[in-house]
């Protein structure tokens, strides 16, 4: 018999997690956990985050802090959330999921199909993470992924919400799982470029950033070569590795061109 727990505070939520162990999952919107073929298996207890008051969106100067329980539709409806962050979301993620799925849940699911992870990393986002000792720390999102940090995400902060951002997502159809999601920022001669979907699953492509830092767009050949040094793909139902490698190159090239041309507002 599984349990459904409704903590009233973050502290209580963490306590439940400690008490119920690995089988206990934090339940944001639940769209990922309840999805057919979800990677989340063997749940013994759901810890609902509904009552934790993690639903605010705060703007402070250039930074934007989003509560982990803010839904994707609420982000779309908010005027201060960077439009580019959501550029791929509206067409690819249907409203019934956007109305329930949360930003915190999307990050914590660590799916390579994520609509946000590459963009948030490009924007140098941080998260507030409460670890299993109940201590809340602000950590770079990149650390969260690279070090597989455990704990409960309570908020996400984008330090420079107006920084130019470009995002591209490639799939066979609008709602198909993407072959790759590519996101990049470029401002004042500084760039950050992330590719989600290959191996490694999440990659910062520093060897391409250096071109951009000089204000140049590498050629398709250069991109393909540089990507091949750091990124590989596997054959699967989304396509062959040759195709994936090629299309990721084309997508990166187009994204970089957009950034340099300043077409992304």
């Amino acid at each position, binding site marked *: 018999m*599984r*349990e*459904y727990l*409704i903590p009233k505070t973050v502290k209580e939520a963490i306590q439940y997690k400690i008490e119920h162990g690995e089988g206990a999952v934090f*339940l944001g919107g*639940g*769209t990922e956990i*309840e*999805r*057919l*073929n979800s990677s989340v298996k063997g*749940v013994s207890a*759901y810890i*609902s985050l*509904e009552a934790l008051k993690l639903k605010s969106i705060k703007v402070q100067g250039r930074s934007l802090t989003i509560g982990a329980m803010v839904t994707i*539709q609420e982000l779309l409806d908010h005027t201060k959330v960077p439009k580019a962050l959501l550029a791929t979301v*509206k*067409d690819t993620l*249907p*409203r*019934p*999921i956007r*109305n*329930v799925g949360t930003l915190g849940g999307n990050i914590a699911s660590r799916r390579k199909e994520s609509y946000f992870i590459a963009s948030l990393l490009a924007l140098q986002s941080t998260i507030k993470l409460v670890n299993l000792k109940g201590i809340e720390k602000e950590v770079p999102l990149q650390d969260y992924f690279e070090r597989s940090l455990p704990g409960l995400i309570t908020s996400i902060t984008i330090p420079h919400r107006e920084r130019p951002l470009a995002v591209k997502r*490639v799939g*066979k*159809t*609008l*709602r*198909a*799982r993407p072959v790759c999601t590519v996101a990049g920022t470029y401002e004042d001669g500084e760039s950050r470029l992330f590719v989600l979907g290959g191996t490694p699953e999440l990659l910062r492509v520093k060897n391409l950033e250096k071109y951009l830092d000089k204000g140049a767009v590498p050629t398709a050949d250069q991109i393909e070569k540089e990507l091949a040094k750091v990124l590989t793909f596997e054959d*699967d*139902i989304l*396509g*062959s590795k*040759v*195709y994936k490698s*090629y*299309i990721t190159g*084309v*997508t990166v090239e187009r994204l970089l061109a957009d950034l340099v041309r300043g077409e992304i507002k």
Partner: protein
Amino acid sequence: MKISCTINRVPREVYGDPTQKLQPFLKRLGFLSVRNSDDGAGYAGSDTILLDGKIVYANLLLVGQIIGREIITPEHLSEGGRLSLVQQCMLDVGVVQSAYNSPATALILTELLERKPAATKEDVIDALGGLLNRAMGYQQFFQVVELAKERMKDPAFVTQVAPEFRDDLRLVGKSQPKVDGVKLVAGHRAFVEDMVEPGACVLKMLRSPHAHAVITKIDTSKAEKVPGVVTIITHKNCPDKMYTSAGQGFPEPSPYDKRMFSKKLYHVGDRVAAVVAETEEIALQAIEKIDVTYKVLQPIFTVDQAKDPNAPVVHGGPIEYVVGAPDNLKELNKNAQKDEDSTIFQFPLHGNPHKNIAASVTGGIGDIEKGLKEADVVVERTYETSQVQCTPMEPHIVYTKMDGDRLVIHAATQVPYHLRRIVSTLLDLPENRVRVIKERVGGGYGSKQDILLEEVAAYATYTTGRPVLFRYTREEEFIACSTRKPMRVTVKIGSKKDGTLTGVYMNVEANTGPFGNHALTVPMNACSKSLPLVLCDNFKFDVTTYYSNIPPTGAYQGYGAPKGSYALMTGLAELAEELKMDYYDLIEKNRVREGVMLEILRCLGEGREGTPALVKSCGLDAAMKQGAEMVKWGEKETSDNPDIAIGKGFAIIQQGSGLPGLDHSCASMKMAADGTFILHSGGSDLGTGLDTLCAKVAAEVLKTDIADVHVYSGDTDVVPFDTGAYASSGTYFSGNAALKVAEKMKEEVLEAGAALLGVSIADCELVYPSKVVAGKKEVSFLDIARDSQAGLGRGQLFANASYTTEDAAFPYGAHFCKVSVDKRSGDVKILQYFALQDCGTPINPDLSLGQIYGGVLKSIGHSMYEEMILDENGTCLNANFADYLVPTIGEIPEDFRAELIFTEDPFGPFGGKSISEIATNGAAPALAIAIHDAVGVWIRSWPFNQEKLLKALDKI
């Protein structure tokens, strides 16, 4: 746990498991309209509800998540018994077709219009982005929203939702809400799942993990001991009879090569054991306890593998014939495996299972060799199509129960009478002890023409006496169902320099998978529904269908025609390129025309000798001219973006209207005591509007209101025989049966009226509304009914009719499209798609348009995105909606238009011809030709995805 929430504005406190999914919870509470099409993939939207005013999927929520919150289900929209504004608009525009998720659609559009009363096309796409509709292609939803916006300002607003035809008729050719539309759009009890009674057992199937194997040992003893298990059926205790799952006219042109359960397993997902238990959970628990030992055999998956002389044999058992056994049968059976199941041919299909051939046929007219020799140019091209799934929103489902000593089958089937025959035969029951009730069907598209689960549930009920529910999961829809047969079609076309065709050859190699259901007829149909599109003295075709171990195949809307059309029309476009001739001119020069005799049909019968047919009506002339104007054929267009190229394509298409000489439809009619009528139609309405069509036709003949003709169909205890809804037979056969019975009833009414008026019948006529008039005298149907049913009257008025024919009525069409191709990414966007179709008199114009849009979008899906992907062991890797890629509203062409081309046909009811199947035949060739026009490469296999295009462009 006590769950406090508000459902449809009523505060409730109900006990439930908070970790249970919300959709089955709501269903159990009686909210039947919250349905399940995707098992929680978050894709199809049949489970849409409002949670605190926002649309959400009930299958992606837990019961615990609704505590303290407010839920609205589609039932709320029509509380008080009246349809809501949006529901009424859906009905008026004609979008309530197979309707499994029509209630959810109404809820979504209602929420949209409350949130955005001036909703734009983009808003509609956003709102419906999470809903799949396989029936009618989304396009008319924009019209629904526009109509709703008008009615929000003026509730009395009326508009013409579709073109009208036949000024001389009151009902035929005019749009009319479907007669069963109210209950479908409101989400009332309508589908099989709504008929299941408390206490019903659940059947779950243990399925083969291997594509080709033999069960060497099976032990169900542990499973039988699980409390709540009612029975377990395996190859050891099932009926020992061979049959075909194909719901075709008896004797079927499909080999009997299937046993309810077999020791030999033919595909991943094949039946190993059925567990019937008190609950689904118990059945699943018991399945885990069945011990099976398999001897794994080498599988084959392709035609080339099946053709290899050393290939493993899929069906190695004895070959038998009911009639027409070949002289060398003994020789054929020399190496038969006695411990394998037999393959029984009802009559010769020219198959040899020991060579993996399920059926074959060859034929032609004239002299193909001579024709090709006379040609100045000959092109020979091969095209391949993939395995695609019908994906009805209502999965396959059956509910069986005993009524005394009679078996009752509530079925979602296209073929109630064939289902009854097959079950009766398997269970050794007389047909009059089996009752099939076809409920409303939430999409079939061919897959519900096969008997895929009904016979197992029926056997379980018959042997245990318990009611049994068997419902497929979405995964089972892919791995244990009916799919489009993959084919390789080679065309060889010879032509003079001026484009005159001198010879056309078509070689069809089909992959039927593990069983030979429709093995002859689907591939033959690739020839019979494409070759007659062009006129030539010399035709030849070869058809061979091979067994393999892919998931089962069968019928799919269009049958073989989409594949034949793809090969022939693309082949002709390739010929035009060789001839340096405009493809349009080539088609115009050679296409079929009104008044020609189609001699080729002499050798294209379905398992029997065919009959040449005279083309009495053909709308191709108008369809081609109009389509060419719409797409601006001949004008080359370019893009400002150097990576983008624009191209145009088109194809002409045809289908049949049922199977003259094979199909058979009946109807009966009686007059009620108030002068209204009850029409019992043998036809099977699959949501396409067949019952509405029958009501219209009868009311038209009887000069009465459509509301005064109630149509009841699909119940084998009540309605007379009909071969069923397949082969585009509904309008033509079932519609003609309705016409014929109404004409007989008209005679009855006139006779009764004349007697009452004291005049001769010759002086009487029926006059709207509902009266018999003779000069200045008249008598109402009400008075006739009262008199006839009074004790001394003539007795209730009845009529019966049976319709068979040798006359053929061919629907035709031309589909035009314009695409943009991104030369660097391989992305293809369909900028325009114009489907112009001749269905004679469009009896239900609004519904006909939906049928066209639905057929086109299905075939766009097949051409561009969909394919079942198998791994090296034969396991389908994308057996779910999230990975299979059925087109959503976001994939529809930017400019998408269906046009009805009126022609006068002498044979159909009021000139009606079939409409829906043909619509699946145009997209593949039209798109392939448009892509070539854009970037100069021919894509000769489905799907035309980005990777394939990039390879053709030498980018990868």
